[in-house]
């Protein structure tokens, strides 16, 4: 009995997402820690791009607590990464609905490494402002496709919309972003 429990909570040799998820459901905290380490950067960048940087740690915590609580509801047909992105998008949307956004967010922004700091900061601010101009539907598709580099199929799974809708939203989001960048002097 004791041995059984030990095996149930042992970290699996297989390091795949599905093996780690199965071990986490059995109560293996080490496996969940591995999943956290694997996805935390992606989750944080998605949250930062969809909302802002002011409550990034709180939102990150909310995403991973939701993942932990609902791991067992993950369907076998669904990939873990898509599911994680979906939770992140939902947390971001909730955050925006609650109006927690701050107008100033430069404090938490990572400083650019290159020498030409002024233009890099300016370009980042323009992109940030461009994202802010988009509605959430367009922004989420643009962020997931062009920044997180997910496929249209993955985005359709994450957002629960048809692929055709992803395409049309992406087309519109890009057109608006392009116009905004041109208007603000960005050199594409």
């Amino acid at each position: 009995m004791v041995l059984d429990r030990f095996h149930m909570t042992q970290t699996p040799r297989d390091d795949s997402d599905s093996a780690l998820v199965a071990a986490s459901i059995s109560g293996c905290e080490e496996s969940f820690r591995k999943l956290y380490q694997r996805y935390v950067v992606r989750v944080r960048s998605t949250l930062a791009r969809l909302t802002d940087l002011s409550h990034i740690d709180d939102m990150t915590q909310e995403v991973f607590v939701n993942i932990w609580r609902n791991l067992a509801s993950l369907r076998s047909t669904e990939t873990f990464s898509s599911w994680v992105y979906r939770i992140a998008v939902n947390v971001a949307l909730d955050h925006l609905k609650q109006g927690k956004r701050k107008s100033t967010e430069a404090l938490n922004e990572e400083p650019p490494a290159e020498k030409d700091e002024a233009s890099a900061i300016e370009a980042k601010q323009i992109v940030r402002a461009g994202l802010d101009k988009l509605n959430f539907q367009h922004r989420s598709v643009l962020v997931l496709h062009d920044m997180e580099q997910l496929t249209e199929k993955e985005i359709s799974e994450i957002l629960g919309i048809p692929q055709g809708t992803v395409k049309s939203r992406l087309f519109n989001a890009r057109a608006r972003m392009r116009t905004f960048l041109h208007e603000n002097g960005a050199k594409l």
Partner: protein
Amino acid sequence: MSDNRFNDERLKKYLQDHAPTPVAPEDGLEDKILDAAKSQGAKPDLVQSFFSNKNFLIGLGSLLAIVTSVTLGIWVGQRRNAALVPLEKFAEETWDGALGEDLEEEPNIIVDLEE
């Protein structure tokens, strides 16, 4: 078409190069998050997850509907049978009493003309 694709690729590159990037998580955030997750329950909430599954709820609803229909059908059938038994008995008694016995005797319909 190819011009659009070229523009899309340039836009994508520009967005990736200048995308908002969060700072690295503060020290201890990992433990803080894992502690918060654990405090929500020792293990992932299997019961909640089980019942929040949409397909499961649809299946459960269908099963309940079938069980209710069958139970109702059996109950109605029993009630019907219970109502029919006395009716058959009543019909038998009535038939025997009102018609059967009388028919066994010859009806006295011959009129004695001489009287």
